């Protein structure tokens, strides 16, 4: 038997090491659909508890929307469970093409190529469109899946300080001898919830003849006046070249991702992107659910409007209570605690109060930047927000951090 006791001991030791360092990721077992209020078993074997969820990417509250679920059911009946193949061999249905067209229209771009996830879209894109003669110039805080995609690509890599336009300009100047340049950024940065200055990025792109690529996974459907994303928020809908996004967060929350942009880039992905060529097709139920989500969002802005109202109420409530928040306009509202143990202890106490949140600390965020990242949903009702605000205030008071600024929290708890 190849899996010897030596191998078992080695892996067990690795896992124990993670537990000893406090970086072992524990799962909470959700026993209900994803929603603002969920049933959770945590820790494993404990009694199931109904808690309010402030730690989901279900921004628009559509994860269990009846019309979306109905559309998925109908697709199961009419198109089956899965395609048993990759797209280009025998796995493309008419509804895949319909979703690509609908997403292109929604984002205001020429063409779209679907992927099983946005992670795979980011893993496939760069190697397909950039070569060693070209330059990829990315923000340093882009999502890990972009980093993976950049590493797979042979183009010359430059990166700039987070949202620093002067540093980006320096890098564009350094890359001027390259054949093609692509500036790469998240639209909304998932840890801080801040928005990339796409208007200024597009100005620099024009000045130095560069393409602009945005991962808008934490924006599509709800950022901007009609929820088109960060390019709408910054009024540059006709100036961003390529957008990758996910159907796995605001847009229903199942799975699936995409690259949208000029029709040639969408087609290049279909011809050459390895995750497209070698991963199974998005399942019909998810495709039909995603089409329904885009139809809902194209008809009305009710969901994104409610999310905006909820976010404002939540941010103001936490701020009034005396928490130190990262400034911003997005439904990602980080409560800054700086100390990892404090973040973990407070998250545990909040769970006891019926509020489901997670502490984030290094290496997920930079050293000394520990926090509880709260996320707001259109699925939250006012009573949910009020209950959570009361719980946060109670626990914040217990730890004596209300009204304290960064230096004071660090002085009290250390880094």
């Amino acid at each position, binding site marked *: 038997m190849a899996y010897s006791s030596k191998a078992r001991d080695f892996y067990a030791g690795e896992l124990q090491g993670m537990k000893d360092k406090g970086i072992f990721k524990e799962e909470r077992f959700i026993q209900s659909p994803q929603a603002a209020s969920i049933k959770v078993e945590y820790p494993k074997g404990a009694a199931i508890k109904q808690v309010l969820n402030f730690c989901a990417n279900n921004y628009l509250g559509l994860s269990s929307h009846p019309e979306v679920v109905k559309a998925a059911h109908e697709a199961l009946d009419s198109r089956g469970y899965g395609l048993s193949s990759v797209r280009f061999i025998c796995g493309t249905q008419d509804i895949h093409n319909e979703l690509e067209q609908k997403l292109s229209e929604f984002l205001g771009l020429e063409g779209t190529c679907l992927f099983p996830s946005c992670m795979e879209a980011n893993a496939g894109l760069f190697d397909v469109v950039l070569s060693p003669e070209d330059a990829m110039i990315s923000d*340093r805080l882009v999502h890990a899946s972009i*980093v993976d995609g950049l590493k797979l690509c042979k183009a010359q*890599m430059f*990166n700039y*300080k987070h949202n620093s336009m002067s540093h980006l300009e320096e890098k564009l100047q350094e890359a001027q001898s390259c054949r093609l340049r692509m500036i790469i950024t998240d639209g909304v940065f998932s840890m801080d919830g801040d928005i990339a200055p796409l208007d200024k990025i597009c100005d620099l792109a024009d000045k130095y003849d560069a393409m602009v690529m945005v991962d808008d996974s934490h924006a599509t459907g709800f950022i901007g006046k009609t929820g088109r994303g960060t390019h709408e928020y910054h009024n540059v809908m006709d100036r961003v070249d390529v957008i990758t996004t996910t159907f796995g967060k605001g847009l229903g929350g199942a799975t699936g991702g995409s690259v949208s942009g000029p029709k040639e880039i969408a087609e290049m992905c279909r011809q050459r992107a390895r995750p497209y060529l070698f991963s199974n097709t998005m399942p019909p139920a998810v495709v039909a659910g995603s089409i329904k989500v885009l139809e809902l969002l194209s008809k009305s802005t009710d969901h994104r409007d409610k999310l905006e109202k909820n976010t404002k109420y939540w941010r103001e409530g936490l701020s009034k209570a005396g928490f130190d928040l990262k400034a911003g306009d997005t439904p990602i509202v980080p409560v800054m605690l700086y100390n990892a143990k404090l973040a973990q202890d407070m998250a545990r106490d909040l769970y006891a109060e019926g509020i489901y949140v997670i502490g984030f600390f290094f290496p997920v965020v*930079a050293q000394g930047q520990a926090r509880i990242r709260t996320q707001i949903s259109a699925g939250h009702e006012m009573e949910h927000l009020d209950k959570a605000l009361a719980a946060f205030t109670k626990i914040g008071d217990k730890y004596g951090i209300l009204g304290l600024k960064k230096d004071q929290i660090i002085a009290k708890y250390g880094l």
Partner: protein
Amino acid sequence: MSDEIKKMIIEYVKKEYLDEDSDQEIKEDTKLISSGIVDSFSMVSLKTYLEKKFSIKLPDGDATPEAFDSVNNIIELINKFGVKV
């Protein structure tokens, strides 16, 4: 020569990786990777800088987070590849 090269690398790290308003001090034994000053993604630009500056090629297998974790470690690394320090 050794001090000059150390100073040059420290200046590069400060300019490239610290915020303009940062008052963080970088010394030759300051932890760069394990402290989060330089993340593993940004390490690529540091590697490129060293290769261009000293006209060397650092194989990926040698350009590890440990090898880049302090200016002293970097000096040791580039020394192995023919840079006289």
